């Protein structure tokens, strides 16, 4: 089996004094694409935010390791530097900070080396082109005035530039039209290789028309209740979450 990248054991987490994640176990190996589906309020985003280290989400128990290192003890930026990435469902607007400046700062931080501005701009241009993002976006303020689709593409752009080991996509497909979903999916497909892995949190099966996952997990009431192949997603699409085994 290929290299174990992310290992989650008995993870429990709360927000606002309410336990949302109630013991999640998951192993993600290099080269894998995992889909996590589940009804609203099941804890999908909470799982993503807890792994990334959002200060409002408190870990109650369990472990998470990225390439054997204890993620839960790291600061948010350290997790990113270790190779974890989260694509946000609602990315923040940062006025006055250009996409280019932000991404160059981030790239230098995750790579722990200072790349020349020229070399970085070349890389950025290339990655923007693959996503069909106009060059002028490099000079725009981060997410300011971006449409929903532009924000999501921008998240995928960041993923491609920063080149993480494990990328979590939190409902990146939600609110997008079919064309935008296809662009996002293409971005994902171009990104995945035998050395990295991806966890895609989604509500809809639509994305699965373009992405071929290795595993589909059902997250319900803070636990993974079922794991299967792409067929599981099909069941959900036809019968809803009530149709799957809930223990």
């Amino acid at each position: 089996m290929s290299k174990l990248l992310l290992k989650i054991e008995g993870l429990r987490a709360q927000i606002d004094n309410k336990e949302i994640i109630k013991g999640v176990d998951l192993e993600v190996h290099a080269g894998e694409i995992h889909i996590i589906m589940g009804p609203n309020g099941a804890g999908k985003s909470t799982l993503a935010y807890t792994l990334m280290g959002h200060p409002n989400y408190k870990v109650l128990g369990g472990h998470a390791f990225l390439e054997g290192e204890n993620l839960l003890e790291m600061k948010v930026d350290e997790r990113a530097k270790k190779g974890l990435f989260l694509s946000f469902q609602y990315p923040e607007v940062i006025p006055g900070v250009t996409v280019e400046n932000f991404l160059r700062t981030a790239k230098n931080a995750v790579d722990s080396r200072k790349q020349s501005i020229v070399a970085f701009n070349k890389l950025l241009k290339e990655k923007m082109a693959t996503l069909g993002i106009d060059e002028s976006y490099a000079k725009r303020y981060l997410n300011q005035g971006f449409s929903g689709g532009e924000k999501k593409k921008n998240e995928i752009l960041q993923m491609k530039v920063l080149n993480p080991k494990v990328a979590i996509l939190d409902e990146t497909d939600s609110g997008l039209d079919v064309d935008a979903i296809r662009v996002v999916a293409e971005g994902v497909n171009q990104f995945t290789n035998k050395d990295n892995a991806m966890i895609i949190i989604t509500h809809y099966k639509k994305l699965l028309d373009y992405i071929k996952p290795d595993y589909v997990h059902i997250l319900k009431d803070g636990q993974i209740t079922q794991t299967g192949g792409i067929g599981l997603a099909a069941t959900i699409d036809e019968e809803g979450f009530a149709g799957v085994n809930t223990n």
Partner: protein
Amino acid sequence: MERKRTVIEDVDRGVYDIKNADIAAYKSEAGLTEAIIRDISREKNEPEWMTDFRLRSLEIFNSKPVPTWGADLSELNMDDIVTYVRPKSDMKASWDDVPEDIKNTFDRLGIPKAERESLAGVGAQYDSEVVYHSIQDNLLKQGVIYTDMETAVREHEDIVKAYFMKLVRPQDHKFAALHGAVWSGGSFVYVPEGVEVKFPLQSYFRLNAPGAGQFEHTLIIVEKGASLHFIEGCSAPKYDVVNLHAGCVELNVKEGAKLRYSTIENWSRNMYNLNTKRSIVDKDGTMEWVSGSFGSRVSMLYPMSILRGERARCEFTGITFAGQGQYLDTGSKVIHAAPYTTSNINSKSISKDGGHAFYRGLMRVTSGAHHCKSTVSCESLMLDNLSVSDTLPIIELANDDIDIGHEAKIGRISDEAIFYLMSRGISEVEAKAMIVRGFVEPITKELPLEYAVELNQLINLEFEGSIG
């Protein structure tokens, strides 16, 4: 034009002599006296009208109360005002006495040693004689007068007499009166009709009178159809053992003329900065202010534009940064005193580590000033729960045939934004600095490049200093 070349030995001896005289003659005097004022005037070899002006200002100063409507000035000892005006020799500044944080800041900003000592007020002015000369020659050819205030009083007496403290009068408030009595140093610029000064003039390049950093007077006249960009001050911290600053800036923009006045004031944290700045704009004239207020313990600073000619316009872009122990009371004032005048105010403030940023603005439209347009926007960013931000935009309208847009926003730095940036590998300190730099970006991009760089470096320093 004759210009006296200032050499360092002269400056040093001058300072020494004055201090000796001071101690010998005025040791027992508590307040500011006529004798002190006469002495200041005599040292400067001033014409009689200026001596008289100083003395009248002194009377006004003595008759006015300390204003109580804004910052707390109770720790300014007005009975002992003479120590602010005439430092005793035991207060003589030396590089060793300059606080560490300021030395470090100089260091981090990469300012050369000679210049540091000058900025810190412990050495003679940084000698940029060569640069100064070339600018001077170029300007002379166009008939532009650019000199220090003392020289202007002697050599361009008529112009100075016609404008000096006509816009900011000693009667206006106690510190304007103090300024009138004890002013020293500063810049004088006269741009003749139709002359466009192509490059920004920086007071940085001018050799000042010794010890002139506290009560300096800036007088600028831009004649009909002429234009000028004047840059004053420096964003590196100015350290002074004497902690009262009461400068005065008077800007006269004539018909169809254009003046941009950019300044970043960054005083050491013991300073009371009570500066008065005003401009008057004639028909079709344009006044642009770019203003940064950093440092100081207390600042009260409200640059005012009086739009007295039809279609005169002004723009104000300002940033205030209040850190620990600082109370910065700043804002912009505009008087629309003629029809079809336009103003555009864009003010931002940041408060951090318990700092208090107070925006106090005034927009007044007189009865005859119909068809005026005004946009006022003030935004405040508080970086923690200790810090305070207030907004007091006063609008006074004497007619209703006007178009006004007003927007005020007070916010805190968002945890979500910090989390977002950190999730991309950016450290917490850098994330915060990045958000703040983004917040001030609309102002930074108005600044001359080297000032923009310094402003950003200052912001970075603020964060590194506090978080480690």
